[in-house]
């Protein structure tokens, strides 16, 4: 095997040196925009500080600083958000307030983005490419009135770029990244290439196209990949290799206050799963072997169409209407690989999971002609069709696949009542009709009060439901010893959240130092939580999914920013306590607390056109109660602990030739985190065992070389 690791820094240095010799440096000082405009949850786009919701913004500049290619790259340092990579499926999920990605919704331009397991929820963050993205908006807490089902713990709204300042904007970049200490020109590391062209055809018509190729060659970690014929667990990869190709296109027309755009996005992803198990196929008679392995290749294809029109009727009522059709198909090719002969046999190809949806959302605001009261009404309709094959899901034997149609017809209204310049209240309500569940009613209430000296108070009460997933509805696992069955009568889980934010903007020394400080308190609860329950008196032992449990999280967090000349810093801390009721037990629902800290530092040297950044996050020890069996065969509660870890990224970003060339050099995961331990404390049948949760693939280095031509 050829296994050479090229130490990336050594490779990068000469290039940096080469460019440092050019002395064409322009002295520009960029001013941080204070009034960022946000759209998430708003009646009309407006400034962050005017929003009733607390909206966090990750700007294009932040994305560039981290050389983020997809959403998973940039969220690692955000407070309260944990990224959880799944090394065996190649996906990256998000968890917020201890709830996984089923409870969290990802939107692109205000509409949910599809994946094979959900519409908006269950999103694989690595599939959301950021190359044509202007900013990312994050709102924590239940947003069911605004965004419907599954927006329980929060939402991410990815806003794409829809205009250009110059006639032509041409950009190209290559990004070479090591995966831990692994890097090679082709077969190790991560290789990204991207090309984008934007053009203003006329004053009113703008179009852009983007193509990105992201080749993650996997984290090998001592494994030997596909062509390895020993059965010692070292075949394949530690993290699955995957190749993503993404093509996007936008066409937009705007005149006066009428805007219309059509956006298209095609994504193709190939994931290679080379089994670590080698069946040696020993021939005892000839004392020879013919090693084979059962390998699988997954192909994801996503199509996204979005047509959006905004404008005003009778110069008064603002409308915003989106029509979208999306589909994602995950296909599986599985075969027996005859390793030494490099041949595939018994090739089977078929659909693994698929989901398609027609979606439309329309809002009409300024319905009342009043300065004090603004009223917005809207509709949302989703015709969603999902299917999963028997390989993907444990379904009734004999059935080849299950399909499910979920049709939702939702109507919502919200009103913003401005009692004074300083105090406004916003009640909201949504009713949701669907073919699968009873009619759901969801409400929200927020209030905002501004005080003197830059103080802002916000209180946000929101609700949202989570719809049951396939396994919960349709699983059928029959075994002589036990049975697990889905429950088609399940209700959606009901979530409610309350947030209270206290914020202060201040400036010192005649505006030389600006500060933003915020303290927030949150409470989030779920009832009718779906868990597997043992059915009494059944033989064999039968588990059925039921709406039995509950979940609560309570916490406080603070986020602070300081701007001082060319220096800016963000500091945050969060303490969250989680209480779960497990299998309708009466004990084990104590709150277990977790601490998170984050710090982002940025320093710009205008003379050098260079920005230095460091992003740090600490995630404290996490605990949870689990049911285990002790030596006496009794079911007991045990505390499971997941070790604390720190994550840090650092980058240097320098531009040349009037910003046409930009180089970003950086390190991800400075603390070299790979796996963290989870272990139970008490004795039990499985005592002393600890499992490892993959977090990262160790300290890695990247170089991004970008060329931007605007004219």
């Amino acid at each position, binding site marked *: *095997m*050829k296994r050479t690791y090229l130490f990336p820094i050594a490779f990068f240095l000469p290039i940096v040196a080469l460019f440092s010799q050019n002395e064409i440096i322009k002295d520009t000082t960029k001013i941080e925009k204070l009034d960022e405009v946000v759209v998430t949850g708003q009646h009309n786009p407006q400034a962050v500080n005017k929003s009733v919701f607390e909206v966090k913004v990750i700007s294009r500049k932040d994305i560039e600083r981290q050389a983020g290619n997809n959403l998973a790259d940039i969220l690692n340092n955000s407070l309260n958000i944990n990224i959880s990579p799944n090394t065996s499926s190649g996906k990256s999920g998000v968890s917020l307030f201890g709830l996984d990605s089923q409870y969290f919704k990802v939107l692109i331009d205000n509409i949910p983005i599809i994946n094979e397991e959900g519409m908006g929820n269950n999103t694989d963050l690595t599939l959301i490419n950021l190359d044509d993205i202007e900013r990312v908006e994050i709102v924590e807490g239940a947003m069911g009135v605004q965004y419907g089902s599954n927006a329980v713990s929060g939402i991410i709204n990815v806003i794409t770029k829809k205009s250009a300042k110059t006639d032509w904007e041409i950009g*190209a970049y290559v990004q070479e990244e090591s995966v831990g200490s692994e890097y090679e020109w082709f*077969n190790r590391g991560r290789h990204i290439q991207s*090309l984008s062209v934007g053009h203003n055809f006329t004053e009113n018509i703008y179009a852009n196209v983007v193509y990105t190729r992201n080749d993650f060659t996997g984290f090998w970690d001592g494994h030997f990949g596909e062509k390895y014929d020993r059965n010692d667990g070292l075949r394949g990869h530690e993290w699955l290799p995957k190749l993503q190709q993404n093509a996007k296109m936008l066409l937009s027309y705007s005149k006066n206050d009428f805007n219309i755009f059509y956006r298209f996005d095609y994504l193709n992803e190939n994931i290679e799963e080379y089994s670590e198990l080698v*069946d040696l196929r020993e021939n005892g*008679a000839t004392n020879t072997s013919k090693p084979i392995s059962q390998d699988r290749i997954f192909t994801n294809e996503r199509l996204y169409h979005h047509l959006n029109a905004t404008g005003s009727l009778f110069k008064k009522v603002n409308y915003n209407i989106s029509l979208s059709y999306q589909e994602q198909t995950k296909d599986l090719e599985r075969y*027996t690989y005859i390793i030494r002969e490099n041949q595939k046999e*018994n090739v089977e190809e078929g659909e693994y999971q698929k989901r398609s949806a027609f979606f439309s959302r329309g809002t009409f605001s300024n319905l009342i002609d009043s300065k004090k009261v603004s009223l917005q009404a809207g509709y949302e309709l989703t015709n969603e069709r999902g299917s999963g094959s028997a390989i993907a899901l444990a379904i009734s034997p004999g059935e080849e696949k299950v399909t499910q149609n979920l049709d939702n017809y939702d109507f919502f209204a919200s009103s913003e009542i401005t009692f004074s310049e300083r105090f406004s209240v916003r009640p909201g309500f949504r009713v949701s009709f669907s073919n699968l569940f009873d009619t759901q009613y969801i409400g929200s209430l927020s209030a905002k009060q501004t005080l003197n000296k830059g103080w802002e108070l916000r209180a946000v009460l929101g609700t949202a439901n989570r719809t049951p997933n396939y396994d919960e509805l349709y699983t059928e696992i029959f075994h*002589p010893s036990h049975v697990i069955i889905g429950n088609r009568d399940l209700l959606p889980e009901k979530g409610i959240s309350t947030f209270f934010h206290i914020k202060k903007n201040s400036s010192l020394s005649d505006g030389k130092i600006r500060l933003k400080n915020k303290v927030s308190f949150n409470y989030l609860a779920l009832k009718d939580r779906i868990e597997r329950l043992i059915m009494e008196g059944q033989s064999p032992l039968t588990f059925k999914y039921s709406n039995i449990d509950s979940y609560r999280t309570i916490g406080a967090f603070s986020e602070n920013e300081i701007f001082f000349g060319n220096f800016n810093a963000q500091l945050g801390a969060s303490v969250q306590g989680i209480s779960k009721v497990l299998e309708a037990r009466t004990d084990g629902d104590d709150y277990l607390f977790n601490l998170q800290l984050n710090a982002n530092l940025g320093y710009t040297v205008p003379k050098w056109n260079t920005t230095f950044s460091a992003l740090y996050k600490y995630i404290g020890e996490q605990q949870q109660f689990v049911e285990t069996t002790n030596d006496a065969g009794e079911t007991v509660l045990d505390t499971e602990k997941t070790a604390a870890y720190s994550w840090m990224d650092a980058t240097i970003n320098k531009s040349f030739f009037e910003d046409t060339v930009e180089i970003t050099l950086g390190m991800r995961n400075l603390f070299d985190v790979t796996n963290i331990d989870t272990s139970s404390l008490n004795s039990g049948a499985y005592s002393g065992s600890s499992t490892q949760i993959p977090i990262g693939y160790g300290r890695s280095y990247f170089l991004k070389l970008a060329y931007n031509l605007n004219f």
Partner: protein
Amino acid sequence: MKPLKKLFSLIVVLLAVSACSSDDNYLTSDPFVVAFETLSENLGDIENSENINLVYSETAENNGAFTISINAENAVYGIDFTTQPAAVDGKIMLQINSGSSTNNFVFNKLNPNLDETTAITFTISNIDYPDSEIRGNTTFSLNSEAATGGSIAPEVGGPNEQFQVYVDLSGRSSVKVQRDGWDLAFHSYDGFRVGINGSIFMAAAELQETNIDNISQADVEDLMTQVAVGTFDPANEAYIDYPDGDINRTAIKEINLDDSQNKVYLVNLGYEVGTETPVPGGVAIAGDARGWRKIRVLRNGDSYVLQYANLNDTSHQEITINKSAGYNATFFSFNTNSVVNVEPEADKWDLNFTVFTNIIDGFGSYAFSDGVLHNRKGDVTAYSVTTDQYNYDDFGASNVIENNFKQDQRVIGDSWRDVMNNEKVLIDTIFYIVKDPNGNIYKLKFTGLLNENGERGFPEFKYKILQ
């Protein structure tokens, strides 16, 4: 702008170059090998002639040839035996034809009186084929001893594991029977014991009644939820034959000479063999439930008398069942309501490849697939060795520890594979020492669990006599 242009073209080149990728080296295959399918055969078992089979390590892609040398003790070529093709100067030449993967020659026994002093050995002495090597089963012996070894792939029937396969190591033979083709085993030994078929998860509970006609389903309704395998209730262990194979621990008590001591039993007939096709690697061993019976067993001289009926019947059937000398038991099936043939003679099998009912400590009885049970009742014993103690290839007769041999028929059991995870795997670090009723000791190691499509129920093992 010149440097810019250069840079732009550099980026384009980078895009182009890194968009294509290279492929690496391939691994080298094993050499081409011709070997005897088995290592030996008993000369006494051959009446007139016998095919001696040879296998290739892979399908031949070229033509070639190989030579077998003959060495005979107390036998003379041309007088006591011949071969076809004929030997020239004590050597047989065989052609390797492109496209074939096996070969054979014929051994003709001319002298019917060859005794145990005779041993005829065939040895592969030359292979004329590209990249070939002589290895594996390079010799084959015809003598009067027990089989020296080879490979056996018992046909348990894939992921439904439809069959129980009885394997005789010394005779290199297998007998397969339908797993749900029998229900009760009436033992042939001195005591009077009746076993139930654990391979289909049967269970039996003693009732307090001696008149079989007095029992109806209403009397046993509560008990029926408990008399089953896999209820996760440790108390259900009382309703199965103890999985170690001890004849004194059957679910049905020893049959008493005094009829009033022989109670009626509630019998759960378990499950039919499954018929579904599970995902590759999975098993579907249980099909429809087979229902219930009530039974009562009595003694009549040296025979058993079986009374049986459906739960709500007010009358019953009766059949006399005789012990079978030379066999472990006489088998009875409720499918046919008659005695059926199941096991080979007690000294003609060593291992039974079968689904079986086992006990998980603290959770009661549980169904296990891929089981291998040794013939405890036929005096087979066994023990396991891990590869951190000895390598399979290096293990010899001198390494055998007599005190380690165990009676528990689950010594092999399910310990040879791991199916707890999605990936179903052989355990590569264990092999077994098995002593048959005639005192032959074999080492035995599993080489297969899945077929080439990754489907379960295709076990294979290699074994070799230790002497």
